[in-house]
């Protein structure tokens, strides 16, 4: 287990609802921020704020350096080269950047180099049935606009990906495979190799949604073998308004940009523009610099803790949450309990309480100072597949203690009684 980190997270010291201490279990939605991140952002504005990559004065130099150092820190966290990390406003924007780049290519942008991004009728896009809406809708839209077909790897009745279906779903005409590294509902960590192996056989690009993995698990893009990966800052202890797209350099240099403006360009005439190479070609306009600096600080904070340690810590939390929920009468745990020793599941538990709506469950927990997410967690198709409209999710991070997890289980046990549902 990690040491108690509450001292690093000022917000966790506050009280809620009638003076109760806060038990924050909504990190899957957004994480709290350590002092290191708050101070990095604050220091940037107080001491170094200036226009990045423009001008030659001292502040412009310092701001540019802070911005690029942060990029290097984020790259180091995921085992990537610095010039393979593109800043975006978040993971949603990162996935849209790829899908819209492919749309631009399909409309003819990018010349011969962009051929591999061009889609049309007869091509296939593959996702999975457990995707967050952010890794489903951009591909739906791309399919609708290009005439390509959208297909998905299904899940079984427990919400587990049906790996045996990968070979038949990822067909020879599949051009891109977009999938989550870990489910924000079942917590299951995806066997990435199964997807990458098949995608390579058919020559399809792989796009990994790393929103739930990068903040919680050791992630090394070279070892994973995927082509592109999106992840957000605010879920990995960083600020909101910042995220990143990682991509293999040769791919990023060939993917047509879909947002246009200053700084991303080599030469502009009244008629035409040529783009810089990645990552700058995807970063037109003034960037969220302080947020990037904050995300860099978050990456450093996580690396200082050690991602192996983080994963082991959260596996212990997962065990308390998932075993506790699965053994409780009248409560259904979405997904499987998982094997914490194998770290095949995140530190979260999404549950359905028989006879009590998720909103009502959340309200009872909130009254005890326990903050969880209720609803469909931006994964409507998965919930529908599991026969429910919503669930109540407790999700952990580095600061979550065993006591926090026990508090959730204890409060959950009292929910059915409160609503007079027979146990």
């Amino acid at each position, binding site marked *: 287990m990690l040491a108690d980190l509450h001292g690093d997270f000022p917000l966790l010291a506050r009280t809620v609802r009638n003076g109760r201490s806060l038990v924050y279990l909504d990190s899957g939605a957004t994480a709290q921020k350590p002092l290191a991140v708050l101070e990095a952002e604050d220091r940037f504005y107080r001491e170094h704020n200036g226009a990045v990559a423009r001008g030659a004065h001292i502040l412009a130099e310092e701001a540019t350096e802070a911005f690029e150092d942060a990029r290097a820190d984020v790259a180091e966290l995921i085992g990537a080269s610095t010039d393979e990390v593109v800043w975006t406003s978040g993971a949603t924007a990162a996935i849209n950047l790829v899908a819209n780049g492919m749309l631009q290519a399909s409309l003819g942008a990018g010349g011969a180099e962009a051929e591999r991004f061009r889609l049309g009728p007869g091509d296939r896009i593959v996702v999975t049935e457990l995707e967050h809406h952010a890794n489903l809708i951009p591909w739906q839209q791309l399919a609708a606009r290009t005439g390509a077909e959208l297909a998905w790897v299904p899940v079984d009745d427990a919400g587990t990906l049906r790996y045996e279906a990968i070979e038949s779903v990822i067909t020879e005409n599949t051009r891109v495979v977009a999938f989550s590294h870990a489910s924000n509902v079942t917590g299951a960590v995806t066997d990435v190799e199964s997807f990458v192996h098949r995608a390579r056989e058919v020559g399809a690009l792989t796009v990994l949604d790393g929103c739930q993995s990068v903040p919680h698990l050791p992630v090394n893009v070279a070892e994973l073998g995927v082509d592109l990966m999106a992840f957000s800052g605010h879920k990995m202890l960083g600020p909101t308004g910042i995220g990143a797209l990682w991509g293999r350099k040769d791919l990023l240099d060939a993917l047509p940009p879909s947002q246009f403006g200053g700084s991303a360009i080599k030469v502009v005439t009244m008629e035409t523009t040529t783009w810089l190479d990645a990552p700058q070609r995807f970063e037109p306009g003034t960037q969220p610099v302080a947020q990037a600096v904050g995300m860099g600080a978050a990456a450093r904070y996580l690396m200082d803790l050690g991602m192996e340690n983080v994963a082991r810590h959260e596996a212990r939390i997962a065990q308390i949450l998932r075993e506790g929920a699965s053994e409780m009468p009248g409560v259904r745990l979405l997904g499987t309990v998982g094997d914490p020793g194998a770290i095949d599941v995140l530190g979260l538990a999404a549950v359905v309480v028989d006879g009590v*709506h998720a*909103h*009502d469950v959340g*309200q009872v927990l909130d*009254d005890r100072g326990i903050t969880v997410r209720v*609803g469909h967690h931006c994964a409507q198709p998965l919930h529908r597949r599991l026969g429910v*409209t*919503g669930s109540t999710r407790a999700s952990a991070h580095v600061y979550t203690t065993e006591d926090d997890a026990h508090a959730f289980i204890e409060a959950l046990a009292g929910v059915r009684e*409160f*609503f007079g549902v027979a146990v």
Partner: protein
Amino acid sequence: MSLEAMYQQVIMDHAREGHGRGLVEIDLPHRGESHQVNTTCGDEVTLRVGVEGDTLARIAWEGQGCSISQASISVLAELLEGESLDTADETFEAFRALMQAKGEHLDEEREDLLGDATAFVGVGKYPARIKCALLGWMALQDALIQARGASSAAVEGGQA
């Protein structure tokens, strides 16, 4: 504001009983139907009304959702079926005011109008739940607009 103050017994009872539940056909010339979804949680309701003269003669609905949304629909069905359209409008406005009152009670006149619906006073303290309580009322308002449209169309038809 305690949890028990929000989930008053009358709310729990209505959530269980579901007055007016069952989407029966309403065989009246002036009728309306509305389907409303709470996009934050996916809760939904389909509500039908039938109007006779200036009376809200029938209310029927089917829905699924949290105890607050289901109880709220049940209360409005019990409260407003058989009442005048004016009373329905005034009650809707009173309920909306109650939701915006941040947990404070309204004046006696409006609370009398609201009857059992005053039990939802605690919901006003929880901004995330106000939408739940209003789901059925929004459906009612929408369905009544249609029913009234059908009324005026019928009147115009009669005059032609």
